[in-house]
C-alpha cells in the first residue's frame, strides 16, 4: 500500500480514537481521574492498528521502542506542566509542555535510539 492512503487512514483513525477517549473522559469524575484520559494511548492504538495491518509486526515493534522514550518524555513534561499551567495558564503552559517533550525526546533519541 502506498504511503499516502496509509497516512490518510492513520489521520482518520487517530482523530476518531481521540474523540472516543475524550468523550469517555468527559463522563468521568473527579477531574484528576478524568485527566488520566488526557494521556490515554488513543493515538498510539489508532496508529499501531494501521501499522500492523499495512506493514506488519516489525514496524509496529519499532514504533513501540520509540514510544517508550516518548512516553517517559511525556510523563516528565506533564509533571512540569502542573507548575506551568498554574503559573502561565493553559495556552502557554501547554506550549511549554510540548517544548519540554521535544527536548527530552530528542535527547533520548540521539542518546540511545538513533541508528
Amino acid at each position, binding site marked *: 500500500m502506498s504511503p499516502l492512503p496509509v*497516512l490518510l487512514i*492513520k*489521520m482518520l483513525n*487517530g*482523530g*476518531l480514537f*481521540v*474523540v472516543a477517549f475524550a468523550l469517555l*473522559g*468527559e*463522563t*468521568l*469524575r*473527579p*477531574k*484528576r*481521574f*478524568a*485527566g*488520566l*484520559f*488526557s*494521556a490515554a*494511548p488513543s*493515538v*498510539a*492504538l*489508532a*496508529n499501531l*492498528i494501521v501499522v*500492523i495491518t499495512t506493514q506488519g*509486526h516489525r*514496524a*509496529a*515493534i*519499532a*514504533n*513501540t*521502542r*520509540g*514510544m*517508550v522514550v*516518548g*512516553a517517559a518524555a*511525556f*510523563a516528565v513534561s*506533564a509533571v512540569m*506542566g*502542573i507548575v506551568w*499551567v498554574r503559573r502561565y*495558564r*493553559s495556552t502557554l*503552559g*501547554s506550549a511549554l509542555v*510540548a517544548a519540554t517533550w521535544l527536548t527530552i*525526546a530528542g535527547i*533520548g*533519541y540521539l542518546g540511545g*535510539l538513533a*541508528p
Partner: protein
Amino acid sequence: MTGHPPTAEEPLIGADPGKLGDVKAHEMLLRFAFGAAISLGAGAVSIVVNPVAGGMFLAFPAILPATLTLIEKREGTAEAVTDVEGAAIGAAALVPFAAVGGYLLRTTGAPLSLTLAFLTWLVASIVGYLAVETFLRRTKERRMRGIPPAGGLPFERHPSGTGEVDVPEIARVRPDGRKGWSQPPATPHPPAL
C-alpha cells in the same frame, strides 16, 4: 502543588454519563483535528526518518493543549491544573503500555497484544491515580484535623510542649502572611491564660 483540592465527599472514581449532553460538537472537532494532526506527524516521521522516531510521536502530548484550554475556558485554571495532574499519571502509564505492547507483538497476535497493552495502561494509571488521590486526601484530612505533616511541627504547637493550640484554619497564617504549615515563629506564643 495540587490544582483543585480533593474533597472527602467526592468518590475516588465516578461517572456521570449525563455530562455527555453538555459536550459541544466544536470541542470534539478540535480534538479530532489534534488527533488527526499528530497521527499524520507520527506517520510522516516514520516514513522520513524511521519507525522508531515516528513511534516517539505516538506519545506526543498533542491532545493536552486542546483539553486544557477547553477546561480552563469552561471551569477555570484550577480545574485545568487538576487535569494535568491526572495526565501526568496517565502519561507515566504509557511507558508500560509501550513496553508490554512491543514485547507481546514479538510472540503474540496483534489483537491480544494491543488489548493486553491497553489493559496494562488502564491498570497502571488507575493504581497510580488511587495512590496519589488517597495520599492527597489523607494529607488534607490531617491538615483539617490539625495533625502535623511528617517532618515538621505545626505552627500551632505551643513552644512549651503543652499541646496544640486550637486555632481555626482561617487563622493558620504564617508570619509572612501565607497560609499553611510552617516552622514555629521566632516570637513564642503568649502563655495560655
